C-alpha cells in the first residue's frame, strides 16, 4: 500500500484546516524519500566548482561530499588580493590535494592585476598538479587583456579556466544601483574571451549563483566552446532544463559551490534521460579532466 493510500484508509485525510497534533506520531516512514537518497547515490559525481572552507580540515569537506555521493571535487579558495595572499590560499589547496589525491582536484586562484606574479603562480600550481584555474573572481573581467597570458598558458597545458559570473541588473543595465563590482564578469565577457581563444577550456561559473540565469544561458547559446557549471544557491525549477534546451547537455557541468543539497537536487529535478544526467553529473567534466590525464577511470 502506498503511503497516500494508507493515509486515506486510516482516516487521516482531514478537512481544510483542522489537523490535530496526534497526526505527528504516525510511524510510517517513507519509501519515496529513501528512494530519493537512493537516486542521489546512484550517480557518480564530480563537482566542477567547489571550495575548501577550512584550509586545515579538508576531511570536513569530504564528509559533506560523501553525504551526497560526490566522488571528486575541484576546489579553490578565492580569498585575498595580493600575491602573498593568493599563494597562501593555493598552498592550502595543494596540501588538501596531497592529503586526498583521489578526491580533491585543485583550481588555482590568482589576481590577474598582479600580472607577473599571477602568471608565475599559475605555472607553479599547474606544475604541482592542479587541474586549472578557479574561481577567478571580480578583480577584472575575464575578457580583460590582462588575462591573455594566463589563458594562453592554460591552453598550452590543456587546463580549464573557471570564473565567477553574474548577471545582476547592475551589470546588464548599468543605470541600476551597483550590486556587484563593475569588473565582475558577465556572460558576454566569457563569449568575448571564447571568440579570441576558441581552443580555451572556459567554464562559466554558477548559472544558479548570481542573477538572471535565462539571460546567461541565452547569451552563451552561440558560444559552443564555453562550458557552464550548474552551481549556486538558486534552485529555480526549470533552470537546468532551460540550459539543456539552449546549450545542450554536453556543455553542462555539475557543481555545488558549497550548496550540496541543492547542487544535487536541481540535477535530479531536471527532466533528463539517464545518460544525460550521468553526463552532467560526471562524464562531461571527467572528459575535460581527461585532456590533462587527470580523469578518473
Amino acid at each position, binding site marked *: 500500500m*502506498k*503511503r*497516500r493510500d494508507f*493515509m486515506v484508509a486510516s482516516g*487521516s*485525510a*482531514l*478537512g*481544510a*484546516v*483542522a*489537523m*490535530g*497534533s496526534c*497526526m*505527528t*506520531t*504516525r510511524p510510517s516512514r*517513507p*519509501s*519515496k*524519500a529513501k528512494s*530519493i537518497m537512493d537516486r*542521489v547515490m546512484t550517480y557518480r559525481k564530480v563537482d566542477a566548482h567547489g*571550495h575548501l572552507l577550512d584550509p586545515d580540515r579538508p576531511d*570536513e*569537506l569530504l*564528509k*559533506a561530499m560523501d*553525504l*551526497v555521493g560526490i566522488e571528486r571535487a575541484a576546489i579553490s579558495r578565492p580569498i585575498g588580493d595580493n600575491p602573498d595572499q593568493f599563494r597562501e590560499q593555493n598552498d592550502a589547496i595543494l596540501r588538501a590535494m596531497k592529503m586526498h589525491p583521489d578526491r580533491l582536484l585543485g583550481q588555482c586562484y590568482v589576481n590577474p592585476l598582479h600580472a607577473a606574479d599571477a602568471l608565475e603562480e599559475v605555472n607553479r600550481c599547474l606544475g604541482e598538479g592542479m587541474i586549472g584555474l578557479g574561481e577567478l573572481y571580480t578583480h577584472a573581467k575575464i575578457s580583460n587583456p590582462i588575462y591573455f597570458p594566463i589563458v594562453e598558458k592554460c591552453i598550452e597545458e590543456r587546463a580549464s579556466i573557471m570564473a565567477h559570473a553574474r*548577471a*545582476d*541588473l547592475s551589470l546588464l*543595465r548599468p543605470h*541600476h544601483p551597483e*550590486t556587484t563590482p563593475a569588473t565582475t564578469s558577465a556572460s558576454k565577457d566569457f563569449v568575448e574571451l571564447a571568440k579570441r581563444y576558441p581552443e580555451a577550456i572556459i567554464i562559466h561559473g554558477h548559472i544558479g549563483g*548570481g*542573477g*538572471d*540565469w*535565462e539571460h546567461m544561458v541565452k547569451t552563451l547559446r552561440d558560444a559552443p566552446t564555453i562550458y557552464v557549471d550548474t552551481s549556486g*544557491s*538558486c*534552485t*529555480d*525549477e*526549470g533552470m537546468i532544463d532551460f540550459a539543456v534546451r539552449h546549450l545542450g547537455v554536453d556543455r553542462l557541468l555539475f557543481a555545488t*559551490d*558549497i*550548496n*550540496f*543539497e*541543492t547542487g*544535487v*537536487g*536541481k540535477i*535530479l*529535478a*531536471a527532466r533528463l534521460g539517464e545518460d544525460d544526467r550521468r553526463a552532467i553529473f560526471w562524464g562531461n567534466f571527467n572528459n575535460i579532466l581527461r585532456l590533462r590525464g587527470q580523469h578518473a577511470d
Partner: protein
Amino acid sequence: MRIDAHAYMGHWPFRPLRGNTCEALVRRLDENEIDRALVGNINGVFYKNPQWANEELFADCESFLDRLVPFAVLNPTYADWEYDLEICRKGFGMAGVRLYPQYHDYRILGDGCTEAVKRIRDAGMVVSFSSRLVDRRQRSWMDSAEDIPMKNILHVVRQVPDARYLILHAFTPDFANDDVVEAVDGVDIQFDMMYGTATQQIGPVLYDLPTGIAALGPERFSFGTATPFREYPSHVIRMELLESALADPKALAAVWGGNASRLLART
C-alpha cells in the same frame, strides 16, 4: 504526516512556472510522498485588490481540501480588507494570511502593519511574512521589492507576541543569534528551512540547520519548498541529511510536519 508549509499556485509575471495549479501541486505532493501543503496564490501579490486571488485560490483548491490548506493574500492598505479577511476566514476556511509589505506598498515597521497582524491574530489565523519571493540577484527590472530583513520581522513579532507566525524564505546568517532567540522566546513562530544545510559546509547564503534547531528548538522549523518557484528534490534531500544530524526522531517528525500541523490545529 509530512506537510509542505510553503507552496504556491498562480502566475509569476517574470517567468513561467510549471505546475502552478492546485491540481499540479497535489500531483507533486504525491510524487514526493508529502501529505499536505499550505498554499497561497501568487497573483495576490500583484492584483491591486488581492481578494480576487483568494477567490481564485479557493475555486482552484476546493476539490483538494483534504490535501491543501489555503492561505489568503491580503493587503491591509487596500479598501475593505477587514471584510475580505472575514470572507477568507469564514467563507473560504483559510488558515492564515500571507502579508507582502515589500510588494503592497507599506512598511512592515509601520503601525498599520502591526494593527493588521493583530486583526489576523484576532481572526484566529496564522500570520505569514515572506522575506522575499525570488533571489534579488535575478530580479526583473520591474520587480523593485527589497528583501525584508529578519530583524524587521522580529520587530513585528515583539510588538504582537501572541500572534502565530509562519515565516517563509526565512533567512538569517545565524539563527542562534541572541536577538533571534530572545525575540521568539514564548512566541508561536515557525520558519521554513529553505536556506539551511545539514552538511556543516556553510556557504555564504546558507545557515547551519542543526545549529539553528539546537538554538531555537525543533518546534520552530517546518519543511517548506517554495514550489513551484523552486524544484522539489533539494528540499527532500535536505530533510534526509537532517535525519542523520538530529539525534531525536521526534524532532525530525516535528520538522517534517508535526509543527505545521500544530500551528494549523489552533485555527
